[in-house]
């Protein structure tokens, strides 16, 4: 089932940044293959934001990982701009993550041996798009300017997640993928981080696909979709 109504779909799909069609994925369980995604269709326009909801084990993170090229789909296709993610080799998927995507994880996943400043710059440098002014602007907006020489272990959870958001936005990605970005934070800190994430994504012109359990946070995004039984419900 699609998120958008059928008549509008063709027009929307035409100019969409992300197009997911008939995506399926199973994992091998003790009793044989366990389907997680059963033909998911999804589109997301440039600059749009979409909250992906669903119960634990519904396949939200799996869908996000497939879009990011971190895992392989069993069937269906994922297009980001003109690139068909499902047909890219490892090198191509890595280039896509570097240059087109920004990924924010629940566990922050900062490099513990790099300073905050270096963590912020890391992806932009890998992508060959390092812009010192943009990084400083991000650091200032994220409240990290005074912490640039510190190491992640010296930061609070909220601060670490802000670094992760900054790192993902530093190369000015076209699509930001966020997997429960506030799941490890208290409500107030989570709200603050989400505000920054949405605001800075808009400034950078990035679309946002965010996995969340919270209906309250999901309401802050342009659109919402729910995964249930391996399919998307509007």
């Amino acid at each position: 089932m699609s998120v958008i109504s059928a008549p509008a779909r063709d027009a929307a799909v035409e100019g969409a940044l992300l197009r997911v069609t008939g995506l399926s994925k199973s994992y091998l369980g003790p009793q044989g293959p366990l389907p997680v995604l059963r033909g998911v269709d999804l589109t997301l326009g440039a600059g749009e934001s979409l909250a992906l909801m669903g119960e634990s084990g519904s396949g939200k993170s799996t869908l996000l990982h497939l879009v990011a090229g971190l895992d392989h789909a069993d069937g269906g296709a994922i297009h980001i701009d003109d690139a068909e993610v499902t047909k890219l080799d490892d090198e191509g998927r890595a280039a896509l993550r570097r240059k087109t995507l920004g990924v924010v994880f629940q566990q922050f996943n900062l490099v513990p041996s790099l300073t905050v400043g270096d963590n912020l710059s890391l992806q932009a440098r890998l992508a060959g798009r390092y812009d010192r002014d943009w990084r400083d602007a991000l650091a200032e907006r994220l409240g990290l300017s005074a912490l640039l020489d510190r190491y992640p272990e010296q930061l609070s959870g909220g601060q670490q997640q802000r670094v992760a958001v900054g790192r993902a936005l530093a190369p000015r990605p076209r699509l930001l993928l966020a997997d429960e970005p506030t799941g490890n934070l208290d409500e107030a800190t989570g709200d603050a981080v989400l505000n920054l994430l949405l605001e800075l994504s808009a400034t950078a012109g990035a679309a946002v696909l965010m996995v969340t359990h919270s209906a309250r946070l999901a309401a802050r995004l342009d659109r919402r979709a729910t995964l249930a039984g391996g399919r998307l419900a509007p």
Partner: protein
Amino acid sequence: MKQFFYTLTTLTSHWRRRPGQFAALFVGLAVATALWSGVAALNDQARRSYDRAAGALGLGGSPSLVAASGGFFAQDAFIALRRAGWKVSPILEGTIRLGDKSYRLLGVEPLTLPKISSNKMPEGDDLNDFLGPPGRALIAPQTLRALGLTEGATPTISEADRLPPLAIARDLAPGMVVVDIGAAQRLLHRPGRLSRLLLAEEPTADAPTLESVIGETLRRVEADEAPELAKLTESFHLNLTAFGLLAYVVGLFIAHASFGLAFEQRLPIIRTLRAIGASLRALSLALVAELTLLALLAGAAGMAGGYLIAAALLPNMAASLEGLYGAELDGALGLAPSWWLSGIGMALIGAAIAAASGLVKTLRLPVLAIAQPFAWREAQRHWLYRQAALAVLALMGAAAALLFGEGMEAGFASMAGLLLGAALALPLPLAAMLRLGERRARGPLAKWFFADALQQLPGLSLALMALLLALSTNIGVGSMVEGFRRTFTQWLDERLVAEIYFEAASDKDAQRITAWLSHREDVAAVLPLCKAKTAIRSTPGSSWPVEIVGAPPHETFSAHFPLLEAHADAWNSIARGDSALISEQHARRLRLALGSTLEIPTPTGDWRVEIVGIYPDYGAAKGQLRVDHDALSSRWPDARRLDYMLRARSETAPEIMLALQAEFGAGVARIIDQAALKQRSTDIFERTFAVTAALDALTLVVSAIALFASLTTLAAARVPQLAPLWAAGVSRRSLALLELARVTLFAGATALVSVPLGLALAYDLVAIVNVRAFGWRLPFHIFPSQWLEVFALALLTAALAALLPIRRLARIAPASLLAVFANER
């Protein structure tokens, strides 16, 4: 390129935050390279010295003609061959004494020397000076320094003889003096005699045959038959190489353990890098580049360490090679470019071996699987099973080498298989012990203790394997050396029975001295020894040098001379002149047993003797035969007759020695009493094993570093595991003590396993390697006190290695323990 650069800098940033782990890795690789390159430098140095000795004047590089029956021959043969168109050059070799040391005197004829040799000879005015009179004695600079003389000096070698003025020749081997052939004949009292003719060029097709010119008096020896020194010392160097390799392997264990932990700890970084777009290719390149950089840095440091080790061990090795084989080594360490290349190569190979499995596992794990905690540990657990299979293969290889292999290489291969197999299998008995402990434990803390130790086993197993190798080597080599010391001391007591040993300066002096001694009432017996050298063929085309010693029939020999096995009337048979005793190593080389017969080539024709006894000869690597004095004298007119043994009451020995020296002065070339001779022999023994002992100790130090490195790197990961216990009421001090108990338990269990392994190693060394290396079979001794020492050493090593991490744990701030809970998700 940018991607590669930033991936590399991100990966290497890990070491900045964990300098201790980097140090462990660096030290492991550096130590492995140092020990290996140190041993390689020593071996290279020795081989270069042999090559210089053999090739100094082309003696080893050119074929030559020697007396068919061994010994010297008349120089008429040289004249006859030159007249017949043969391009031959005469050589006379012998030994002279300068001060208290013997030197090889080489007499040459520079105008006829082969080109390769004449290039090293003086030219122009220097050549005229060499040809004399008074001539020149060419000598290597270091030999001149060792003698404390300067160029132009004319040292005395006997009452009537002095060397021509000394002149430096840089390419000459140490311990060698080269003079004109005429001077050599005069100094060695061999007028008109030669030891060999070098073939400067192959005879032309129309030249008369050798036989048609001089009959069958000379035979041709090919160039590669000549370097007997290299042949004799080969086993010594193989022994050393094996130790170097063992130390290298132990060093690699450290590097492997550190790499494994580093990969484990960096998995989250690798996952993050992959998630934000670092490609697998960039990551692989970065990991390989990091490894190469590290290997080059550690390799360079290791080479410096290797140089220092070699420089420190060189004097002992030079002394033992000189004492055992008469091989003189250049005292200054020279390093060939190949040494540098091989050292760095070994560091690179070592790093690749140490990191290979970690690298492959890291690159093969899917991006998402990397994120799973303990994925590495799981992989390690599977690896343990594979390790057990490899252990079985290694042990089977050891058994096959033992059963079907030949030569010392097979002996070492069996030892390597045994050590490797046992080391790889070590985690299995340790795991079984811990599981048993867990089942038997009553209290919750005791249960946790064993369960936790079991969980720690994969992380520590590499360090424990290194400890096992070091401890069992300690026991094995210790048993062998201690057993040898006992056997050797007993052998010396039995062998050195005479009260005084002396050497006359010349035959004339010998006659004067024996006549004088026969009138002294305090001398019970004067026992002349007659010595000759020849080569006995073992297989077609191969012969072994042998020294033949003739001694008169006397109770000194028949009652005391140590024999391994002999016929009942061996000494009477020898006195009849048709039998011989043979040294153990020569009997093994020639595959001779009691009752075998042997053809000895002599100047008067082949001499057929029956072997009636086999004796141990730990003092020499060369083969030796002992026969009756008169029988040898009659067959060997040129035999050396300068050595004597005197029997007297021991309290009168010093007085006799003084009287002899006062009466004959330089006519007595050497004189020594029994005690001094035993002391000198023991010194050679001690120095021979000083190198072994040093490498043994260094291997143990390396294993301590391995344990320290593993414990230190694991210490950080321990905090989250210990925090729940602390929260449940176990004090930090108790936790630290439990950690100490855990390390001690591991080390103690490893030490227990090392005892049977060490004994197996000792048996392999004594019964296989030594026999194949030196030709000796030593009695197998066990020394339980040594096991206790090793046990204590293991506990001490472990305690020292654990001290710092445990001290840190005992003093850890509660905030650090609390942080574990704060970070829990």
